[in-house]
């Protein structure tokens, strides 16, 4: 089981409270599709993603971005059982969506960069360390049901 100090818990909550899911979600997903274009393989029905501008203006990307960030809220609210929280979602990404779990790491990095743009200096080195620890637990949970 992952151990969280009180400071780490309050740090994750404090970062999360500063984020607007409807803004961060679309931007983070757009970044992952632009910075790591092979991730587009999972979004075949999304239409035009040929240029960065197209990705940024794509309403399906924006909608999916919000879905992903809303799901992250469950981890924030259940830090003591992130693995259990995402078991079904992990199984779905493996069995139904056939997503290579390395992509979860790529998306986590893009979420961090997006959060960095938003929080700027408020994302201190220690806050970044805690936030990345949180996301790495999420990434591991999302890969946990692959067998």
């Amino acid at each position, binding site marked *: 089981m992952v151990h969280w100090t009180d400071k780490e818990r309050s740090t994750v909550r404090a970062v999360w409270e500063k984020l607007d899911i409807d803004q961060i979600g679309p*931007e983070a997903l*757009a970044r992952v599709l*632009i*910075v790591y274009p092979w991730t587009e393989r999972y979004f075949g029905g999304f239409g035009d993603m040929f240029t960065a501008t197209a990705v940024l203006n794509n309403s399906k990307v924006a909608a999916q971005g919000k879905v992903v960030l809303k799901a992250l809220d469950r981890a924030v609210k259940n830090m003591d059982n992130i693995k259990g929280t995402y078991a079904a979602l992990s199984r779905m990404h493996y069995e139904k969506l056939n997503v290579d779990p390395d992509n979860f790491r790529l998306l986590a990095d893009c979420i961090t960069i*997006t959060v960095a*743009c938003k929080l*700027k200096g408020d*994302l201190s*080195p220690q806050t970044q360390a805690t936030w*990345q620890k949180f996301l790495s637990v999420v990434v591991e949970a999302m890969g946990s049901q692959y067998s």
Partner: protein
Amino acid sequence: MSPTAKDKDTVKAFWAKIAGKADDIGTDALSRMLVVYPQTKTYFSHWKDLSPGSAPVRKHGQTVMGGVADAVKKIDDVSAGLLSLSELHALTLRVDPANFKILSHNILVVLATMFPTDFTPEVHVSVDKFLAALSRALSEKYR
């Protein structure tokens, strides 16, 4: 995954905007690396103070960003341009190349915090590709 002509133009244009803050970027990136990835501290056991913004961290941040600045100047052939730095890392420093990715990530985070409006997704991908090419060039002589 090598930088295209467009990537190189993007990197050069972005660098022109940020070059004045190179020292701060280097200090902050290194500070974050040492805090977020504590295993990287193993390369700096000879420093008195590894805390964010300390004197040795500032000084080394300057050195690192000097190397990045040089790579931007030689962006059309980073491998050839960084030959001596490559030999230094391979034969003397022997930094595990996995750490280049770690430092690159922290440079990207710092660029995002310091230049949030300029660090668009397009700039992000071009800089990421450039830093990857830089890392490849530094690993050239390892074996």
